[in-house]
């Protein structure tokens, strides 16, 4: 009997014991450790129960005491098992939360990246509308040149120099379209932009859907019932006792509250 109890308690304890190495203990400056055997643990349980009973001045027969000790031991074992199970669930949920967080982060970053890409494409498209439509012109070099001209004049800290102004006017005049149609981008490039934007929009919608799913998983994992909670003092539904003060009045009030909430619940469904 004793050995069966020992092995059962050892099994339960194993689940909650924290393992540390000798080197770690040495690092903490520990030169020796105290140890406790299974026999002593069993004795402690018995002693604790005996003391509790003595304190309550209970005069019981040995057999009755034995029964209570055995029940207490079983309760201890049950609680230890519960702690072990909880520890396992906690670890599993922790892993799950970590995975879900990584997935959510990755998706959020991907969406951010796609949004930036979209903004870039839209800007490029807008810029395209105002760039000179001269055939064969290097638009990037053109824009850079305009930028350089403005930079040059800013460096001089003051109004544009005559030379800079002349260069700017000459350049803009050359770029100015001679007919309104030239302002619009070519139909081919517009089509390309539209294609790009549609693809990006589709991609972002898909990413957002996946993000919403991942966030839901994360929320559920974070709210996982790892915390065992605290048990209620009631094992079953109570209701008004026969000895309650104002019993009839309270019964009437409960009935009115119930009817109002029943109606509310029906309307909510």
């Amino acid at each position, binding site marked *: 009997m004793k050995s069966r109890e020992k092995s059962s308690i050892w099994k339960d304890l194993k689940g909650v014991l924290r393992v540390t190495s000798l080197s770690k203990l040495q690092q903490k400056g520990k030169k020796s450790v105290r140890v406790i055997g299974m026999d002593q643990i069993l004795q402690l349980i018995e002693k604790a129960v005996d003391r509790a009973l003595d304190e309550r001045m209970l005069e019981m027969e040995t057999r009755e005491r034995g029964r209570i000790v055995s029940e207490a031991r079983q309760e201890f074992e049950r609680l230890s098992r519960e702690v072990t199970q909880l520890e396992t*669930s906690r670890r*599993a*949920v922790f892993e*799950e939360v970590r995975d879900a967080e990584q997935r959510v*982060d990755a998706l*959020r*970053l991907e969406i*951010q990246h796609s949004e930036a890409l979209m903004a870039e494409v839209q800007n490029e498209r807008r810029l395209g509308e105002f760039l000179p439509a001269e055939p064969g012109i290097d638009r990037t070099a053109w824009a850079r040149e305009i930028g350089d001209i403005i930079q040059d004049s800013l460096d001089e800290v003051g109004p544009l120099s005559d030379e800079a102004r002349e260069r700017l006017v000459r350049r803009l005049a050359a770029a100015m379209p001679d007919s309104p149609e030239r302002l619009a981008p070519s139909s081919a490039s517009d089509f390309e932009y539209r294609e790009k934007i549609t693809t990006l929009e589709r991609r972002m919608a898909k990413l957002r859907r996946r993000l919403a799913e991942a*966030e839901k998983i*994360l*929320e*559920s*994992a*974070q*709210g*996982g*019932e790892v*915390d*065992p*909670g*605290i*048990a*209620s*003092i*009631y*094992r*079953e*539904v*109570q*209701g*008004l006792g026969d000895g*309650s*003060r*104002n019993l009839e*009045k*309270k019964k*009437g*009030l*409960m*009935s*009115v*509250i*119930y009817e109002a*909430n*029943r109606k*509310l*619940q*029906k*309307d*909510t*469904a």
Partner: protein
Amino acid sequence: MSDEKKDQQTDGAKDHGVLYIGVDLGTSRTAVMASNGVRASVESIVGYPRDHVARKLLKKDVLFGSEALEKRLSLRMFRPLERGVIKGSENGTFESTEGQENLKAARALIHHAIRLAKPRADELVYGVIGAPAQASIKNQKALVEAARENMDAVIICSQPFSVAYGMDWLEDVLVIDIGAGTVDLCRMKGTMPEESDQITLPTAGDFIDEELQTALEQTFQGVAVTRYMVKHIKEKYAFVGEANDAIEIDLPVDGKPTRFDITNVMRASCRKIIPPMVDAIHSLVKSFDPEFQERLRNRVLLAGGGSQIQGLDRALENAMRDRLGGGRVIRTEEPLFGGASGALQIAHDMPREYWEDLSKKTEPAAN
């Protein structure tokens, strides 16, 4: 959570016991009491990270109460209840963006409040939520929907009623529940209070904050205070009547803390809630059965956070003496948990068959 684990939890019979939860959902503070001994409260404030960086830093998608206040610069802050209803739903719908966002925040707050009660997965959870007396049906439905996600059955009842029920004062009592958004006056006559038994006033805690902030800025040149600062000052020093000591505090002027005596400003701001309250008491007393008017006048119960204003009971008694020929005002012993405690008592007293019926999934009503 894995499906397997979910199944273990949902399939596991809820045979460990019954947890009753009483929730007082207030504009400023939400209080929770449960039949496992838990008593907790949280400021009714919800914060969501402003952007990806803030979310990474805070490692949370939503924060509540003082934690949210502490990190408010990185958060989009919501105080989802205002004047007793979900903000943005004053016209009875949640169609506006403001209404939608505040509804989401209110749901998150209810979930948080229930989690504070630490329910076990293997217990039935039955809860009663004390909602403001004038909360619209749409608002009540929103509360029920949010609570049903974490509770097996839920009941909504009026806050002042739950305060009176918790104290077992069921007849000839006038409850004054002074919250942040509203002051709810409710006349108890042994049956369920009707609309004519209740009066709601907007001159509550937030009103005092507004008045105090204006008075501080107008009285003391250059003083800059936020609503949060004013609220904290009020919670610490609010009083009406005679001051025991001068209230001297440091307030920032041009970035420099400067000492001011705010005794008179504080008293004047707090006193502004008395006249409308006395008018409402008068109205409820004079329309009561004449035989029981005296008894009602002498059983005025002050509850809610605002009942902690020093000297308010005496000031109301003095005002009632002039207006109604006398009266007696009693404070609840637990201003913050009175509503939650009453809601918990209602949950406890509700018969089994009612709870069982309310815990069934209701089919939509046929049109």
